[in-house]
């Protein structure tokens, strides 16, 4: 059943200025503020990664002290997971879902605005956790106990880190709840569930997982903070394993929360530039739901080596993930085969996503086998695996979406020439950085070490990886130049620069306050590609043209 929230009868005018932005209840503004903050934090975490790669470029190198290095990898991981990829994934949904389902606004806009500010407060707290003279947070992004307790991580640094994570995760949970409610309860007339675009479906499963799994981390972080205040509270043998369960009950689903929205973005981009409907829509929707449910049941594979989890069960469910993932891949490939392909920048990033994420996925299946996991656990093989899923996969999907929807959000076209340069540098940089890490892991190099011995092969692989990181940094600079130059030149974007299929392309670029108005009404919705239906209708009405 579809519920409709009608646009207000009195439409306030579009307001400008800083004060209008920071207190805006418009979902698009809140999403853009969240995206902007997250992208700034991405740059900061990227700089930290460069320092780490400089440190590891040669064996026995000591550019930064060991304790500082520990803080650097903690900051890098924490910012990337809690403050960059997750918020970007949810904020993309906050921007696009109301547009794609034909809603004039998001459910609970004030809650979404409060969420942005809570997220910002959490970000500031987490960044400041590195500063205290008594020692910054250095227990890694998952802050295992007892390393994160008051005995091994004394001082306020760890407390600020816990506060930052708590606030950021709380904010994203609230925002995700609002996005989910919008998709489920605020669709326009005609927009049935099975007419929602693939991206919106990807957000539905993302938000379901967020609502179900994030409270676990809030509990874990709260308990660590309580244990720090009173160290006698928890008995470590039991508590340490309990913490790992609480943490990974959040920590594995969040990998998919940082992945599904970008699968949805890639699906939209592939269909648009193949000039055909996404093939296998219903199987893809079902596979997304199954994938999301299965991914709630795999967290125990992070505990294989503790001998405190049911290895058979978690190995089975982790391996089963390849079935819905395979279905989605068939959908991607079937959409491409027989399509009239064109290759603008969003399409290039979407195409690169397919094989690169495949590497991340397949190595994940390897790690789902306990026998192999015993060998690779805690090595650079795992680092390579999750960077192929989260960077070579998710960030490429994110960039496909970024180039695709940037004209819609800003009303400005990006430079194709710089976009292509960015793409090629990024593909080279990504693979040169992360592919050698599989080799390092195979040779037994442990993760989170500030230095390593000059064993045969390790130095060369690390040097290659560090050179790749430099190429990645240059590629990000090209992206920044592209964005700033495009915003300066302001080549105006039409409402539908790519010939898109979904409702957001039926409105202006950028969309009006309540998304659709008299100049840009919601077209008739008969399928998950309403604008393609409209074009087909027009073509059949005038066959000569």
């Amino acid at each position, binding site marked *: *059943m579809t519920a409709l929230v009608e646009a207000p009868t009195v439409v*306030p005018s579009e307001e400008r200025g800083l004060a209008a932005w920071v207190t805006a209840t418009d979902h698009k503004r809140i999403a853009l503020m969240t995206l902007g903050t997250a992208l700034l934090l991405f740059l900061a975490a990227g700089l930290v990664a460069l320092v780490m790669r400089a440190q590891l470029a040669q064996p026995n190198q000591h550019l930064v002290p060991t304790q500082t290095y520990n803080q650097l990898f903690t900051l890098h991981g924490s910012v990337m997971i809690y403050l960059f990829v997750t918020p970007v994934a949810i904020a993309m949904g906050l921007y696009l879902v109301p547009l794609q389902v034909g809603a004039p606004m998001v459910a609970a*806009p004030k809650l979404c605005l409060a969420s942005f500010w*809570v997220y910002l407060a959490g970000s500031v707290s987490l960044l400041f956790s590195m500063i205290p003279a008594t020692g910054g947070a250095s227990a890694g992004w998952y802050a295992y106990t007892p390393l994160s307790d008051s005995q091994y991580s004394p001082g306020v640094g760890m407390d600020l880190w816990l506060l930052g994570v708590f606030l950021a995760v709380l904010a994203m949970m609230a925002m995700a709840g609002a996005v989910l409610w919008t998709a489920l309860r605020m669709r326009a007339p005609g927009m049935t*569930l099975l007419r929602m675009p693939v991206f919106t479906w990807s957000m539905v*499963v993302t938000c379901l997982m967020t609502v179900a799994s994030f*409270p676990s981390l809030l509990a874990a972080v709260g308990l660590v903070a309580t244990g720090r*205040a009173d160290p006698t509270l928890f008995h470590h043998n039991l508590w340490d394993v309990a913490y790992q369960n609480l943490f990974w009950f959040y920590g594995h689903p969040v990998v998919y929360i940082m992945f599904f929205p970008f699968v949805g973005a890639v699906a939209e981009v592939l269909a648009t530039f193949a000039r055909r409907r996404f093939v296998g829509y219903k199987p893809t929707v079902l596979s997304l739901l199954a994938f999301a449910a299965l991914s709630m049941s795999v967290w125990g594979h992070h505990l294989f080596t503790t001998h405190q989890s*049911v290895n058979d069960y978690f190995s089975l469910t982790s391996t089963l993930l390849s079935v819905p993932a395979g279905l989605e891949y068939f959908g991607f490939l079937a959409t491409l085969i027989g399509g009239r392909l064109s290759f603008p920048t969003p399409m290039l990033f979407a195409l690169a996503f397919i094989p690169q994420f495949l590497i991340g996925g397949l190595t994940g299946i390897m790690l789902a086998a306990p026998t192999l996991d015993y060998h690779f656990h805690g090595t650079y093989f795992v680092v390579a695996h999750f960077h192929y899923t989260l960077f070579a996969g998710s960030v490429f999907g994110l960039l496909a979406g970024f180039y695709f929807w940037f004209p819609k959000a800003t009303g400005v076209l990006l430079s194709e020439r710089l976009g292509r340069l960015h793409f090629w540098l990024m593909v080279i940089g990504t693979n040169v950085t992360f592919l050698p890490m599989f080799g390092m892991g195979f040779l037994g190099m442990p993760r989170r070490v500030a230095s390593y011995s000059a064993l045969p092969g390790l130095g060369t692989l690390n040097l290659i990886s560090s050179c790749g990181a430099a190429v990645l940094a240059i590629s990000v600079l090209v992206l920044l130049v592209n964005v700033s130059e495009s915003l300066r030149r302001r080549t105006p974007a039409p409402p539908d620069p790519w010939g898109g299929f979904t409702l957001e392309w039926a409105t202006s670029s950028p969309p009006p306050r309540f998304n659709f108005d008299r100049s840009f009404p919601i077209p008739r919705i008969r399928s998950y590609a309403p604008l393609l239906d409209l074009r087909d209708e027009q073509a059949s009405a005038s066959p000569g043209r």
Partner: protein
Amino acid sequence: MSAPLVVAGWGAFNTALLVILAGYGGEAMVLWLYGGAVGLTMLFAAGVAASALRRPARLRPRLLPNHGEVGLVTAGGLLAVGLGLTFGPWFYPVAVGFLFFAALGAFRDWRSAG
């Protein structure tokens, strides 16, 4: 396919996975953890169902203010509570101040919307 069914169906799939985990001999703590998440999902499904029953067709048009200062003030209050836990209780009066103004703002917005 209806919205409450989608959420409840997803919760039911998770319930099946939970039952299988129990069959494999998962520990009570792990089962409670997973069961809690399933319960939360079902609660959300019930909320969606209740909303669908209560407002089957259309919501009344209403005026949405362009601004929501309350959000900013609430975030300030939450941050001050957290800083109080970290640095000491002298942050709590600040937190109370922020949260008081947030509640006041929320009440004002509620009255003007009603």
